């Protein structure tokens, strides 16, 4: 387990994993709550 953690630096600690999960959650939130219309993003 320690070797796996060393091989995957981003998951080297529980705190890092929590930060990644938090950022993913926030990214999904702002994509879903925001409604910007970006040129090229709507298939025209």
């Amino acid at each position, binding site marked *: 387990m320690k070797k796996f953690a060393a091989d995957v630096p981003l998951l080297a600690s529980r705190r890092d994993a929590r930060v990644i999960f*938090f950022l993913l959650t926030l990214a999904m939130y702002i994509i879903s*709550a925001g*409604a*910007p219309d*970006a040129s090229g993003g*709507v298939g025209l």
Partner: protein
Amino acid sequence: MLLGAALAGLAGGMLWAALGRHPYQVPVLRWAWLVLVAFIPQFLAFVLPATRASFPTVWIPVALVGSQALLLIFVLMNLRQPGFWLLGLGLVLNLLVILLNGGMMPISPETVQHLYPDAPFGAWQVGQRLGVGKDIVISIADTRLWFLSDRFILPGWVPYKVAFSLGDVLISIGAFWLLLSFGGSSSHKENIA
């Protein structure tokens, strides 16, 4: 734009933590699974190329309003976190103008013309969904609470063209503030498990 603000806040927060010689820590959010549940219908309706083109238009308002209603519950469950009131206020403003205009975010023909000056004739029409996005083209005169719609555009010298709402601006500020604040040492210590 929204993700850019979040990345800027994250970079600032990590720099703040590094300068203060303490770890960058985030809290455990309550009911975080609700965000994933809310994200799935929008992912299918607006993001995934394989499904967004065939997603029934009549179901778009259901997917958008239902999804944002779930996000509202999530925000209320986490209002103690820094910046969440701004994330929530932006969501409420977007949801309000969407609800008052048939379940999609209104955008004016003038703004669409600015975004897509080279769009072929008939590519978009007033009263119709704009492509496969969240917006519906409505004239300014017919838009309820027009000032909350996708009415802002970036300056002409910015190569990236995008239309965004007041709610989007508040969400951007809230995300920036939230991620920046976690670089502080003790302001949110009580929320971190």
